[in-house]
Each structure stands twice: as C-alpha cells, then as structure tokens.
C-alpha cells in the first residue's frame, strides 16, 4: 500500500487572454490577461454550465416510460418479474429508499463541516459605506420632517385665519376667470394665455397653472404689491420680459452681412416673483406674442426668394433695404435668471425704431384678425373663407392673372421692409430739405409736411420765397415720398421721379432755386414797368452747369436805353449783366432813333455784392431803380 498523495483539485493556473494589442507596425504584440477567478467565482462559473433542466428531464422521464422498460428488461434477465405481482411496488420503494439515502448523505455533508462547507455562490457585495448611508438617511428624514412641519404649519395657519383666506382665493379666481380662459383638469386649474382664440396659429401654447398661495406673507419684502391668495405658474420659456427691437443702421457698403454681430442688450426688465398675477400673465403673453412675430418673420425670411438675401442669425434677422442701409429685427428675451449672476451695467442708449416696432405688432394683429374674420358668405350656402371677389371669379370669367393677383398675399416681412424703406426715404428727404431750409437765406425754403400720411406714403410742400418779396412772389413744389421713389411736382405741373439717392433731390432743389430767382426778376420787371425782351428756361450758352440748366432773362428799361441780362444757374448762381452804351457808338448808327443805340453794345457783369440789400431781389430792385432814374 502506498502512502496517499494529496491531489489538489483546482483550475489550471492560467489566465485567459482577454485582448491582444498590436502596437506600432505589428512588431510589438501585447497580451492582456483576464484576472484570475477566485474559487467561488470559478464555482459560480461552473455551476452556470450545468443544465439543470436536462438532469431533471432524465430523472423524471425515466421512471414514467423508459425507466420502467429498462428495469423490466433487467429483471427479465435475473428473475421472472411478471410472475411477481408486487414487483412495481418493490421498485418504487427501492427508488424512494435511494432518494432518502441520498438526502441523508447531503444533510450529513451539509451538517458536518468536515466534508464540505456551503458557501454563497454569489459574489460578495461591496462593503457598504455606512457613513454615506447614514448621511442620506438623515437628509431624507430631515426633508420629510420639513414637509410635515410645513404642512402642519399651513394647516394651523389656515385654521387660525379661518375662512377669510379661503374666500380671498375664490374672489381672485373669479377675477382671473373674467379676464382669462381657465379650465379644470383633474385637481389642477389650467389657463390659456395664447392668442389662439384671437386667430393665432403659433405652435407654442401658453398654458399656465393656477395655484392657491399658502406661503406666509411675512417673508415678502416690504412694499410689494399686496397679492391675493392666488398664484400663477407660467411655463419656463414664457417667463421674463421680451420685446422686438428694430434697428435701421447705415453700414459701409462693402461690409459683409455675415459679420454683423449678434448682441443682446444687457438691460432688460425683469418680472419680480412678487408681482400681481395680472401683470405676470400680461408679461408672459407679451413674450409669446414677440416670439410669434419673430418666428413668423424668420420663416418668411428663409422662405422668400428675394433679390436681397435676408439673413437669420440666432435671434436676429438682418436685411438690406437700400445699399448701405441695414434693417435688423432682434428678439430680446430675458428670463430674468441671468440677472442674478451679475449686476447689469448702465443701460446703453439704444437707437431703435419705435414706429416700426409698433407696426410689426400691428401687422401680426391684422394677420390674426384675418385668420378668424372671414367675409360673410352670400348666399349662405357658399363656401366660407372665400372673399366676395373670389366667389365672383367664375361668373365674371376672370383670367389666370387676376386670380394670381388675388392669391398674392404680402408677407409680414415684406410689409415691414416696405415700411422701413419708406421710413428711411422720408428721413433722408426730411434731412435734405431741413438742411437747405437752415443754410439758405437767399432765397428761403419753407417745408410744410402734410399731417395726413400713411406708413407707405407721405408728402410735403416746399415753398421758396425771398424775404420782403414773399407776398406776391413765391415758387413751390410738392414732394411725394413713396416706398423707394420720390415724386416731385413743380409749380408748372411738371412731374419728376427721383430715386432714393439724396443727390438727385439736392440737384432738383438747386434747380428750383435758380428758377425762383428768374421768376422773382420777372416779377420785378413787370412791377417796375420794364420790358421783358427775352426769357428762357434752358440757356444753351455760357458755362455748363453741373446739373440741370441755367435760365436767363433779358429786360429793357422803360425808355429802352438800358438793358439788363440776368442768368441764374443751379451751380453757378445768379449773375446780372448790364448793357452799357459807349458814346462813340451813337455816331456809327445809321438810324438816329434812340432805341437802336444799344445794338451791338457789350454786356458787362454787375457785382451784386457791392449793392446794399438783404437778398438778390432787393439788390436787383435797387439796380433797376438806379437805372430807371439815370435814364430819365
């Protein structure tokens, strides 16, 4: 008999390769091994491999059909089983005895620790961090305690205050219901602050929740508005304050639109948490409205194919109205949260356009109105939402062109751009006219703006007068300003169309002034009994004017021995020439009549600056008076 050799039964001490890393150019190959399994892990792994179901099937299946057959066959070889009636009973008893002994063995093994130790198969749980658990438990307890305490306090308060608080809430709710749409869903009261019922089709809803306030009023800051027992909860994206800001800026022509910086004014109003619900709801509604305007404009800016590209950057829409003039529409929305982080600097002076902002609001309201106000159908069986003109399109046999025109719907953005163009043009025209009115003293300009105008059309009458002579002699023209052109109508009824360029209007004004000087001279001539010899509105001789043409007038004194020529040009100014008659000239003349004495005489320029007088007509009057007197 040999001495017993202990055989250690355990897994081969080999680590499994988990991963093979190839580094570099395939030279360096590294094998990453999986960590060794512990005994229990190994057992668990092996246990996983056992198909318990299979064993069960074999054990259970055999006694019923196959097992019996096998045993019968066995018995048939040893002794005749069919001859013994208790055979099946014996078999069953034998099987149960085997089971019992196996069970006993298992129990023995389990009970007496010298054979086998039963260990938990599963991996040991990570050791609990007791400190953390304790802390979290403590926190949970304190929060729940706080909740309980608060509710108890609330209950106490509501009991103490009795019914007064309760009524307060209901009265407030009644007031709220008179102004806002409310409905009850389950236990909550929901309201709607959107413009849907007014015809809006904006995707964003404006649902708010109505709550009963139960917080103590003592914590509120002093001076806050006394609010009732009602609180409204507004969705996050509608909180704060928003507005649409429209700016019309002149930018250098070469500037790239994309380089325009996006900026948000730092100072925006905030809604305090303590404000009355009415103001809160109104602010939220305004936020919603501004958002709708902006999203509508942004959609149109992207969709429309215009020659001028519209740019939508973040919360800003930029477009060019005229070369060098940029329109930017900005949606400003502050939720009021940023304010807490840093104190805002002093509000910068924003150069924005109130009128256009207002008209944007107006345009969207109009759109809303159109959405729900259909023209009434007549007869009543006719389709709704169709205008009378459209209904009559069939019977009147309208052509495709007419129908297309009818379908043409001007977008919000287009309308705003038009208004902006008109606005810019009006400002420019005003600037030019005012500048001339201020700088010119001879003659003078007076602008009379019509108080009746529209957002796309305005007009102005410009009077040109000379001081002291303005009762009888004046020159005027009308200026009509449209979207991108200016129409001027002169006194004679001549109509000129000018573009948005300032220079064109300036040239026109200068030309009108030169015309005015001639008409003043004509008038003086008539008044003082001089004879007008020749007048022309477009002088073909002399220096060329930078724009338009000069006009001229030649007149003779009452007794025909002196003649004056006046030339007035837009750029060269007014010049007066006198025809002087040299003495020797008289001898050359064939006819003795005095009126022929001027023929062939030269004109000499008169220095009008040497004359006394406030303006050109008074100087001319002096000159004419002198000439009339010397002649007699």
């Amino acid at each position, binding site marked *: 008999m040999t001495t017993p050799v202990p055989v250690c039964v355990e897994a081969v001490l080999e680590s499994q390769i988990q991963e093979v890393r190839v580094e570099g150019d395939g030279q360096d190959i590294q094998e990453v091994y999986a960590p060794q399994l512990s005994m229990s892990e190994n057992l668990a792994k092996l246990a996983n491999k056992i198909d318990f179901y299979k064993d069960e099937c074999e054990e259970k299946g055999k006694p019923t059909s196959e097992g019996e057959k096998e045993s019968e066959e066995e018995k048939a070889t040893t002794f005749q089983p069919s001859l013994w009636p208790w055979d099946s009973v014996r078999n069953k008893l034998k099987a149960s005895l085997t089971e019992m002994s196996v069970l006993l063995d298992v129990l023995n093994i389990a009970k007496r620790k010298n054979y086998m130790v039963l260990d938990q198969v599963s991996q040991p749980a990570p050791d609990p961090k007791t400190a953390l658990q304790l802390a979290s438990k403590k926190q949970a307890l304190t929060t729940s305690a706080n909740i309980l305490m608060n509710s108890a306090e609330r209950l106490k308060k509501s009991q103490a205050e009795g019914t007064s608080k309760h009524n307060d809430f209901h009265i407030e709710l009644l007031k709220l219901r008179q102004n806002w749409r409310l409905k009850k869903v389950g236990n909550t009261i929901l309201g709607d602050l959107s413009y849907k019922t007014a015809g809006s089709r904006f995707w964003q809803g404006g649902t708010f929740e109505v709550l009963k306030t139960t917080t103590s009023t003592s914590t509120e800051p002093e001076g806050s508005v006394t609010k009732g027992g009602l609180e409204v909860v507004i969705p996050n994206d509608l909180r704060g304050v928003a507005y649409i800001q429209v700016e019309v800026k002149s930018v250098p022509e070469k500037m790239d639109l994309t380089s325009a910086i996006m900026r948000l004014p730092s100072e925006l109003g905030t809604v305090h948490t303590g404000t009355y619900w009415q103001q809160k709801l109104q602010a939220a509604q305004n936020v919603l409205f501004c958002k709708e305007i902006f999203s509508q404009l942004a959609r149109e800016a992207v969709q429309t194919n215009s020659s001028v590209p519209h740019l939508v950057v973040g919360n800003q829409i930029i477009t060019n109205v005229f070369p060098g003039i940029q329109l930017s529409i900005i949606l400003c929305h502050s939720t009021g949260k940023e304010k807490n982080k840093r104190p805002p600097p002093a509000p910068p002076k924003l150069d924005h356009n109130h009128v256009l902002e207002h008209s944007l609001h107006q345009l969207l309201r109009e759109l809303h109105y159109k959405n*729900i*106000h259909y023209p009434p*159908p*007549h*007869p*009543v069986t006719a389709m*709704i*939402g169709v205008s009378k003109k459209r209904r009559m399109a069939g*019977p009147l046999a309208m052509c495709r062109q007419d129908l297309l025109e009818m379908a043409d719907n001007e977008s919000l953005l287009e309308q705003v751009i038009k208004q902006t163009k008109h606005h810019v043009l009006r400002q420019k025209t005003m600037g030019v006219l005012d500048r001339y009115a201020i700088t010119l003293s001879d003659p003078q300009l007076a602008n009379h703006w019509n108080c009746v105008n529209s957002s796309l059309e305005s007009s102005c009458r410009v009077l040109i007068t000379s001081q002291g002579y303005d009762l009888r002699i004046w020159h005027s023209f009308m200026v009509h300003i449209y979207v991108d052109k200016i129409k001027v109508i002169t006194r004679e009824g001549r109509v000129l169309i000018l573009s948005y360029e300032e220079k064109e209007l300036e040239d026109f004004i200068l030309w009108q002034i030169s015309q005015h000087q001639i008409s003043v001279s004509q008038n003086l001539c008539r008044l003082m009994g001089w004879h007008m010899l020749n007048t022309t509105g477009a002088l073909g001789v002399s220096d060329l004017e930078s724009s338009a043409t000069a006009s001229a007038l030649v007149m003779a004194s009452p007794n025909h021995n002196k003649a004056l020529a006046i030339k007035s040009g837009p750029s060269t100014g007014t010049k007066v020439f006198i025809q002087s008659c040299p003495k020797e000239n008289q001898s050359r003349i064939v006819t003795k009549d005095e009126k022929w004495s001027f023929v062939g005489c030269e004109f000499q320029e008169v220095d009008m600056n040497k004359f006394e007088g406030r303006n050109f007509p008074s100087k001319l009057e002096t000159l004419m008076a002198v000439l009339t007197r010397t002649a007699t």
Partner: protein
Amino acid sequence: MMDPQLAQALKAAPTNEYLLQGSILDSSLEVLLCRLKGLCDHADSPEEKFVDHEMVYAIKNASIPQPLQYSVRHSLVQPENWQLRYLGHSEMGDKSRHTLIRNCVDVATSDNVLQFLHEVGFRLDHEFVVKGFYFHKGRMKVTVSKIFKMMQQGHTTDNLESIVPSYLVELSVLATAGQDAIAEDMKNFAEQLKPLVQLEKIDHRRLQATGT
C-alpha cells in the same frame, strides 16, 4: 376626356357636406344667438345676417322615378351673387358616424342661370325665402334661419309668410371625402349647444315618408 388638371382640381374640391340639424322655437332664439356668439370665432363683431332666395328646379327622367333637382340660391343682400347647388343622396350611416354626409356641389353662377335651366328643360318645383343669422367657428358653419313661404311668385321682399314658429339650426362643414375627424369636432360643438338646441342627423327620407 377631361383635362387632367381639371380632374385633379375637382378631386381636391370639397364635395362632401357633413350636416347636423335641429330646430328651436322663436322664443329661444335670443338665448341661442347669445351662446353662439360666445362660442364662435368673430365674437367681437355683430352677428352676420343673411337673406337668401332659393328656387328648386327639377327635371323628369323617364328611366328614374325620382326627378333630378337643382337648387338655385341668390342672396338678397348681395343680389349679384348666384349659386347653383346639387345635393346628392344623404348617407345616414350607422351609430358610429356622428353626422349625416351628403354629396354637395356648389357652383357660383351669373344671374342668367335661371334662363339656362329653363332652356335645358328644368321646371321650377318650389321656391322660398330664408332669413337668418350666420356664424362660423373654424371651418364649421352655423346657420340659424327661418323659412318663409312666398305668397306671390317672384316677390321676395313682400308678401312673405312664415311657415312654422321655429328656427332651423344647421351645423355644416364642406370637406373632401374621408375626413371623418370633422364629424368628431362637430359632435363636440353640438354637445356644447346641448341644452339650447339638440343637433342631430335627421333622415330626410323618413320625414318624406311620414309626410306623404
């Protein structure tokens, strides 16, 4: 052969009328109008009135016992608006369907449509004047109207006699085929008018059967 564009346009045209009807007594008119004003879209403007004159023309066909009928309507408020309307067979459907559905083709015409119908062979069957109020909510059209009998043919303004002391209330939507979601909306709207007026789908054939 029909122009494909026209065929497409006709396919897109709304030809199905979803209809609910009810009636109220004259005395409760004010209350219903008030409710409708609150529910419908143009709450801020005064209610829209209408006066229409309807003439129903029929032509007999030897093969079909039922005469073919066309109704010509023209507004007495805007007299230049004429309309020719064909109403198809109305489908009651089963309980799951909330409204009556009938085929309906409306054509705007000029005023000489009467002459045209005469020349084609139609004869005037009956005529009446409808006066009432019109409301709308979205695509839904609500009319509250009273039907007047014309004592003298062709006189639409005088010699009118009301037939019954009640108003006919109709809720209708014109839509393309297969838009059954509308029926649901209409049912909900009818629910909101419930105590004031009971709007239901009314089988006209049964009415005709009891009438004869």
